[in-house]
């Protein structure tokens, strides 16, 4: 009896120890993934320009420098512009495509679904390089100014937006109760009105999430842009990479923090519409 009791007690302390170790390792992994963001934020507040530890003091001057740097401002606006246009086009084609994928049975549906998700699977650098070659060839063949143009870059980014939007919008369409549409049509709404007034509000979380993830993945894309940018122009990720290849200092850290803040804001906005944990 007493041995049984002690072994039971031993088992419980064993489990408690297990839980403790588990939590410790989990915290460690969580902090590790956030560590680079913490360090870059810390560096952005250093007083001196040389990134040597410990800092002589703290200051906000690098943020002033960052937002006064024309190269980075131009890069930021190009990234934002490309991201917005690509997201708009991406949504415009992804919403109908998602409806077809979830509500119609046709041959090749699986293949088309895979094709639409493909740009997420192809290595960014390979996708960028192949698009560049393709644009060179089509420019030669058609004599249209495709290569190195704004729309050539946007096209590459639309490819990045489509998989995210299709994935998230089909997910919310699958969860949408179609009897609501039928009810609207029974009450006299034509199919388009029913879609606009009933379906769209119902799947809005999916559309918002698709737009946000699409925009963020376009905004942060480095590899595809690297091949497609207009000569003499850079997107923000390219500007950051090129600066870092040369040196690291608090100015680039401040720019990085601004980018992190934009992304956090986008995530928190998305989270108001859909739980992020359900999306990714």
């Amino acid at each position: 009896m007493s041995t049984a009791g002690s072994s039971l007690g031993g088992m419980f302390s064993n489990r408690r120890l297990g839980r403790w170790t588990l939590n410790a390792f989990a915290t460690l992994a969580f902090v590790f993934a956030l560590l680079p963001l913490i360090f870059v934020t810390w560096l952005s507040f250093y007083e001196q320009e040389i990134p040597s530890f410990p800092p002589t003091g703290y200051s906000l001057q690098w943020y002033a420098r960052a937002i006064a740097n024309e190269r980075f401002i131009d890069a930021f606006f190009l990234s934002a512009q490309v991201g917005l246009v690509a997201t708009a086009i991406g949504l415009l084609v992804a919403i109908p495509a998602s409806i077809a994928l979830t509500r119609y049975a046709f041959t090749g549906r699986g293949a088309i679904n895979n094709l639409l998700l493909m740009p997420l699977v192809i290595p960014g650098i390979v996708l960028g390089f192949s698009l560049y070659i393709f644009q060179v060839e089509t420019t030669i063949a058609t004599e249209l100014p495709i290569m190195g143009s704004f729309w050539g870059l946007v096209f590459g980014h639309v490819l990045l937006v489509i998989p995210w939007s299709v994935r998230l919008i089909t997910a919310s369409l699958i969860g949408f109760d179609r009897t609501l549409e039928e009810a609207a049509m029974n009450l006299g709404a034509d199919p388009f009105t029913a879609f606009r007034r009933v379906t769209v509000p119902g799947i809005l979380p999916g559309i918002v999430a698709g737009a946000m993830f699409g925009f963020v993945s376009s905004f942060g894309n480095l590899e595809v842009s690297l091949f497609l940018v207009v000569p003499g122009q850079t997107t923000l990720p390219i500007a950051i990479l090129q600066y870092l290849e040369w040196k690291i200092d608090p100015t680039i850290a401040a720019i990085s923090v601004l980018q992190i803040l934009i992304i956090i804001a986008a995530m928190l906005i998305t989270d108001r519409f859909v739980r992020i944990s359900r999306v990714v």
Partner: protein
Amino acid sequence: MSANAASRPKILTAAFLIGPATFIAALGVIGPMLYLLRYSFNQYDPMELMIETFTLSNYVEFFTSPYYLSAYLTTLRVGLISTVICLVAGFPLAYVLARSGSRFKNLMIIGIVVPLFVGNAVRAAGWMSFLGSRGLLSVTLMKLGFTDGPTDFMYTEGTVIVGIVAVNLPYMVLSLQSVLEGINRNVEEAAFSLGAPPLTMARRVLLPLALPGIAAGTILTFILAMNAYATPVLLGGPSFNMMAPLVYGQFQLNNWPGAAAVAFVLMATTLLLTILVAIITRQKFREG
């Protein structure tokens, strides 16, 4: 007859709805890939740049030149090591998240998702400030008396692995978490009540049940590690060579056929290893 009459317009509607997206994706993926494949059989010439022909010389060159081979092996090694670390480090975190009923859970998930979308260059910047010769780590080691002078931890394979693990860990955690969440808590309790210590329970109950998530996470993180660009460029330095930087490097040297061949070797390798992992998991799943 009426069924046919009804399905014809339906097919047309579906085609109308899905047409534009399919057109863009086909134009952006299939066309460029075919051109890339074709280019990889062309020949590079320092004077004329590219000669249209049909040769396997770029692929032969790849598998015989020590320069390309070492980049290939480095990429495989870094991919493998970082994936194993991600799996081991990611599992406890994924489990805690999956079993957490805390109201901070969603905030924690956001904390894991945010780094995913912050560019890799930005995260590399964080490591550069920490691991450089005047960074926190070097200075701390010096102050504690472990080292006499400043140590530069940058530009090594280890640094690149650290950077890639930090980049890929969130992907692994999210893949595992979604599967672990679906495992009924009672099976764990059953194992405990039968006297299994926590580690035995994890090994005999959780691991087999989580295998689909493990496979998904492993494949995803391995692909991402193999294709990493910004992290090896910034943390590995100019002389450190992995496949994705190699593609861009050859492109900049105007050796487009060579770059195309490297790109195809990279894609073929990832694809083959992905299929391999899928087959192994399916077999294990059947046995288990």
